[in-house]
């Protein structure tokens, strides 16, 4: 059931701009997004509890959240897993993709389920993505398969130390 809400990540992403939102959030959306970046309650009716806090009905909140996902203002709603705490690994990786091969390589890289997110960046290394694998050894294995699939080197930038992570942006 949750899979039905997946954003398409194939052809739409192959353009230079990647995945773009279809609308700008209004004030109510922003209030909702801010309220939902914190700790979603582990109670029987969590949306009702958040709805009270932002002044919406439970149904209106759920409908609005669905539309924010459909319009790609939000990319995801749910638990954010730390795979390293489950015995797996995350690793930042980068490739220098020739412009003439851009669309094809985006498709090939995004097709790997291990790619959790992927950004185009302005640099000779123009594609930066995060691999998530269930075992630490899975990173090198995935990178090797990706090199075989694309014919391009994959540069790995494993985290040696984490100084700070707190990705909450006020909408």
């Amino acid at each position, binding site marked *: *059931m*949750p899979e039905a809400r*997946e*954003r398409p990540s194939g052809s739409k992403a192959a*353009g*230079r*701009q*990647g*995945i773009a*939102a279809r609308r700008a*959030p209004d004030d109510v959306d922003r209030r909702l*997004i801010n309220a*939902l970046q*914190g*700790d979603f309650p*582990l*109670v*029987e*009716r*969590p*949306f009702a509890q958040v709805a009270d806090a932002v002044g919406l009905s*439970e149904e209106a909140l*759920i409908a609005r*959240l669905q539309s*924010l*996902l459909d319009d*790609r*203002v*939000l*990319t995801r*709603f*749910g*638990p*954010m*897993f*730390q795979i390293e705490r*489950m015995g797996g690994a*995350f690793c*930042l990786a980068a490739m220098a993709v020739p412009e003439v091969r851009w669309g094809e390589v985006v498709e090939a890289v*995004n097709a790997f*389920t291990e790619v*959790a*997110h*992927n*950004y*185009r*960046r*302005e*640099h000779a*290394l123009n*594609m*930066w993505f995060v691999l*998530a694998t269930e075992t630490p050894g899975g990173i090198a294995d995935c990178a090797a398969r990706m090199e075989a699939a694309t014919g391009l080197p994959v*540069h790995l930038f*494993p*985290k040696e*130390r984490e100084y*700070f*992570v707190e990705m909450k*942006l006020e909408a």
Partner: protein
Amino acid sequence: MTVSDPIDSAVGGAGVPSGKLGDVQAVADLDRRLVLATQGGLALVARPYALLAEQLGTSEALVRERLAVMLADGRIRRIGAVPNHYAIGYPANGMSVWDIDDECIDAVGERVGGLPFVTHCYRRPRHLPDWPYNLFAMVHAATREAALERVGEIAAAIERDFPGVCRSRDVLFSAGILKKTGLRIGA
């Protein structure tokens, strides 16, 4: 929300076999099935944990408890919304990268990670000769100018507290999100 001993609470739960070793295995199995069931997102229904319990053949109380345990031990960072930062007013996503003297990289990393506008900060390996940078600090802003201003603040903080340790830097702005699904483990 109580976070009680997973073994005790799992005993007698629906679909969980009895016996100590069986319980440990059953809890690990339930946790894994919870990850698989929610990694694509939490269902947008009034009682999402009850729906999960139904899908996994267990009780809603146990679903909520296991999620609480995973939050407490860090397997889940948080439960919530992941915004498209372009859409919510932060189109300028700059990955600032720094070549910091190895002698004091951790002290500099802690200092930079402590700045209020830095959303991620990591030490990573250099890839010499083309990539001399060992410190990564992400900044998000409404405009590229504002992001660069923040990168300038990072540079000033480093230079003030650790003069001479930063040899070079760069900022890689994102030009588009190509994929943002979050992690996916296999079934």
